């Protein structure tokens, strides 16, 4: 045996053993258990396909338009997110001077108005002359006029009704060309083309190999995805990523981490993600260093579970020392 084993096993009685045989038996047993679980419970993702923009635009057109308008008029949180998307460094999560997001900087610059709305609108304009005319009118208007139209349209959306799938705004109000533009986005989304356009526009020179779905995944972020997540009980306040849609177990091993978000003093912080991770990572480091931490490394002696684990051994050698057997 190795030098370490010779030293560690000095004076220890040995018994015959076959490691590979035992390994194969356990592997077979575990494989059978997994196959059984897979056969009876399947994969939870089967019934919970991605939420598509087409689906939202069709079933909840007002919510879709509100989200689109928030990017269009610049009121979405994404436009002031901070690094890595925008230069609003004051919004980056930090603990005093500890601001890892700031150190990395804006490595994925995102202009939500342009990237998520204006670029698709330009493509829609290529297909639809009415949208092209409305877009031209909008772009030629003063910023003040644009803001007034955006505001009036946003207010009207709050009172909008859906009739036969069409969004009907209150008759009064000066919305300018905004309804035509927004309806253009709605029609485009209902045709199932918006995700593809957002992905293509990420880097047209990469088409058809572009696989960065940031823009498409962002589009429904905020209230829309939050509503769906609430339905499944998946928001951060209900243990977030540690469980999934449907009646299945999931990433329960994240409980020590997601638990931290349930503590109001942490979960309500602006920098909750950073604080939670620092605590989690710090705890992991403490656990790793238990062999060197005087109080913690004594816990197994104080809670003597080892006496149960090695009960046969202690029956034979009460002190644990094989040179002093019970018969002596």
């Amino acid at each position, binding site marked *: 045996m*190795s030098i370490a084993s010779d030293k560690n096993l000095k004076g220890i009685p040995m018994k015959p*053993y076959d490691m590979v045989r035992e390994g194969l038996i356990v592997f077979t047993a*575990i*494989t059978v258990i997994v196959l059984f679980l897979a056969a009876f419970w399947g994969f939870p993702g089967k019934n919970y*396909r991605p939420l598509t923009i087409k689906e939202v635009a069709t079933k909840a057109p007002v919510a879709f338009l509100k989200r689109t308008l928030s990017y269009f008029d610049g009121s979405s949180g994404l436009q002031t997110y901070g690094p890595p998307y925008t230069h609003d460094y004051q919004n980056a999560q930090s603990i005093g001077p500890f601001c890892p997001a700031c150190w990395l900087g804006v490595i994925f610059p995102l202009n939500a108005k342009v990237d998520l709305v204006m670029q698709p609108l330009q493509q829609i304009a290529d297909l639809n002359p009415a949208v092209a005319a409305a877009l031209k009118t909008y772009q030629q208007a003063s910023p003040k006029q644009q803001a007034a139209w955006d505001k009036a349209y946003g207010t009207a959306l709050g009172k909008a009704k859906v009739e036969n799938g069409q969004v009907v705004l209150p008759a009064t109000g000066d919305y300018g060309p905004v309804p035509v533009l927004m309806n253009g986005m709605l029609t485009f989304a209902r045709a199932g083309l918006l995700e593809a356009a957002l992905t293509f526009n990420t880097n047209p020179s990469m088409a058809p190999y572009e696989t960065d779905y940031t823009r498409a995944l962002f589009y429904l972020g905020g209230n829309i995805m939050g509503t769906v997540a609430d339905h499944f009980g998946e928001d951060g306040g209900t243990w977030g990523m540690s469980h999934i849609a449907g009646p299945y177990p999931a990433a329960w091993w994240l409980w020590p981490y997601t638990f931290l978000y349930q503590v109001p003093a942490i979960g309500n912080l602006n920098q909750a993600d950073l604080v939670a991770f620092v605590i989690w990572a710090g705890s992991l480091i403490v656990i*790793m260093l238990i062999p060197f931490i005087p109080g913690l490394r004594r816990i197994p002696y104080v809670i003597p579970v080892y006496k149960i684990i090695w009960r046969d051994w202690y029956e034979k050698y009460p002190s644990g020392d094989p040179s002093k057997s019970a018969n002596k």
Partner: protein
Amino acid sequence: MNIDRFLQETIRKHMTLEDALPTKMPEYVNSFGYFFGTATLSSLAVIFISGIILAFWGPDWWHFTSVGHFTNSVHFWAVEVFYVSVTLHFTFKFFKAAWRDGRWRTWINGWLIWGISIFSGISGTLLQANWDSQWNAQQGKDAFNALGLSFMNWMNYTTVLTLHVVFFAFLIAVLVVAHLTFVRNESPVRPIVNEGKDEK
């Protein structure tokens, strides 16, 4: 220095054939507590095997064919069994104070594997290509951005796939081999003597 001779000497001193393929074991290795390490390794093997099959056939196959769906289910449940096994494994190791006699590197190495497995698991969740992937990508971005890890773009499917099946898988495989090497080199930790009163 003759490198071959050095390696021969090192292996002879630290990993003999009897260590690698033991035909005898200390008498105290006689408890169900020893089962969980092997169970963890076995479930990891099922994860790797099912993962390799999934990699060959791709997302459409695992979502829309019955065999693919079943293989995906095997991968998912193997992960669940892995975490149950590893949780029991480190719980028993803790109550055996298994870091004694210089085994601290095995203890640290094990927790390192666990920590990396968390990131590997998250990348796997994002690869599911379902609602949960979408929601977790949306939620997880805030945490990863806050930590300065945004360079790993979790919304780029190619990046996530490569990290999951190459980077994390490779790291875990290497550290598991190291873990097993430490374990076999050092032999199973001895039962605590005299209720630990003689130990610091």
